[in-house]
């Protein structure tokens, strides 16, 4: 019996090994290198090697007003987009729960935004948002509304990008939650039908807690990806106008690959990493408290 257990243990550890070894092997050098750069001053194109500079990078960070403004923009963006995507995704999942052909088609259609290359998504929305001859303002004018100068002025710029992000990624949440729904055991629902609970109670006390692991995954993934968002904003506004859409990763990219200030770029990256780490840990705790095991 103990041999069987130790065999089990061995096999089980074997199962995680490839993933762990791989992540370790590829991930370790970049991580260590970035960590090392936190304490160095290194302009990549200066032709000089990294120069140790104590904590100068952190001092610069604290004094950097652009860091604070991009952090604020990132928070505003994430705090708006992610909850909406989660909520909408959940609503959609419930709305297509049945298996009618109509709903089946809807399910497939809803996946489309996710499948389009982000570069194309960004540029097409930019084209649609064109204040002069874009389709959005055109249609608004047809119903008598004068559309804002979407990406051309600071105020409407971030909301414009949020709308696009919601369009692009709600399908992601929807897909995860749908897949999750289909994997829920049938028996649970059958039992509740006998008990005589109604639809809302079904949802609130049975479905929802069972869905929590999936909601958590969707939340984590969306939070991490949204906090790091880069491709689409880069292509649409590059952070403008007047820095209204400059999120942290855009600023980091600018510092790293425009100014080639690698030490400071590493510092900004670690800030992003730390914030994401702390927040995800909180989310996971939240999920554990609400999940049914």
């Amino acid at each position, binding site marked *: 019996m103990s041999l069987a257990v130790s065999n089990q243990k061995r096999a089980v550890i074997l199962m995680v090994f490839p993933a762990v070894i*791989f*992540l370790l092997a590829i991930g370790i050098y970049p991580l260590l290198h970035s960590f090392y750069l936190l304490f160095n001053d290194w302009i990549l194109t200066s032709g000089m090697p990294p120069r140790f500079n104590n904590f100068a990078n952190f001092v610069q960070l604290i004094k950097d007003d652009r860091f604070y403004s991009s952090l604020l923009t990132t928070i505003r963006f994430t705090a708006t987009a992610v909850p909406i995507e989660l909520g909408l995704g959940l609503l959609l999942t419930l709305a297509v729960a049945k298996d009618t052909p109509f709903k089946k088609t809807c399910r497939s259609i809803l996946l489309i935004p996710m499948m*389009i*290359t982000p570069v*194309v998504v960004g540029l*097409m929305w930019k084209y649609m948002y064109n204040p002069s001859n874009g389709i959005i303002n055109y249609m608004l004018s047809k119903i008598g509304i004068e559309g804002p100068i979407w990406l051309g002025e600071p105020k409407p710029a971030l909301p414009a990008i949020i709308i696009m992000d919601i369009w692009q990624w709600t*399908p992601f949440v929807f897909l995860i939650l749908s897949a999750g729904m289909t994997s829920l055991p049938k028996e649970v629902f059958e039992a509740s039908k006998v008990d005589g609970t109604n639809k809302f109670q079904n949802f609130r006390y049975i479905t929802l807690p069972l869905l929590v692991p999936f909601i958590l995954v969707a939340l984590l993934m969306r939070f991490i990806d949204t906090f*790091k968002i880069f491709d689409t904003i880069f292509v649409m506004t590059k952070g403008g106008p007047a820095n209204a859409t400059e999120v*942290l990763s855009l600023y980091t990219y600018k510092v790293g690959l425009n100014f080639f200030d690698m030490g400071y770029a590493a510092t900004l990256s670690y800030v992003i990493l730390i914030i994401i780490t702390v927040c995800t840990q909180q989310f996971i705790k939240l999920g554990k408290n609400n*999940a049914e095991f």
Partner: protein
Amino acid sequence: MRNSKETISEVLSNILLILIVIFVLFPFIWIFLTSFKDRFEIASAIPRFLFKPTFENYKQIFLVDGFLQFFKDSIIIAVISTSFAVFFGSMAAFSITKYRVGGNFLSFWILSMRMFPPIAIIIPVYILMIRLNLLDTYAAVVIMHTLVNMPFAVWLMNGFYQEVPTEIHESAMIDGCSVFRSFFTIIFPVVKPGIIATSIFCLITSWNEFLFSLILSGRRITTLPVATAFYVTDRDILWGPMAAVGVTAMVPIIIFTILIQKHLVRGLTYGAVK
């Protein structure tokens, strides 16, 4: 009374559904239409739904710019990296969920691999690939895509494994199965929806990834997102061909999704418990 409440919610949810579907479809339709417009039509002051279509853009991307080559590169990279990520990731997820290997630390550490902004690791990754002599090879891009996809695969499969009652696995073990055999023959089919969903995501993520594909590729390898960016030059944006790429790049993914959609539907072997 219960009936009318339910009908109202049915109707409401259908209305919501239709509204969202329109919202989702509209930009896509616009991209689709744009791909058939010529330069002047795209620049016209009045956007139109009815116009004289042209196939020039599609001709351009396939006949002039050789996009079939880029499709090939993207497909190879996406399929290989997804396979690795899903295969090793779901195995790891099983151990983490059912046997609590590594506790909370391991699963969090795996997730943290995805948290780091790519810009920060571009340089070390570039140098690493040069040292490994892998620059401008499929391997380099596959490795980075797997690195990005694996944490997601692990975490998503975690959720699915949590839904699988432990009894299935334990009874298989009692019957004399090894862990591996039980995993592959019994658990795997049960979490098929999870595998399918994870595969779709990983495929799409790899298909659309830009930064690493750009930096690590070169003459021999160019993926679709990078090739699409070709249409933004220093003097011009070629909206037409770009829209055409956007549309055709979706085709392989749509085909794949349709083919395996039926496996996403519920109704699998829950009889195993009985």
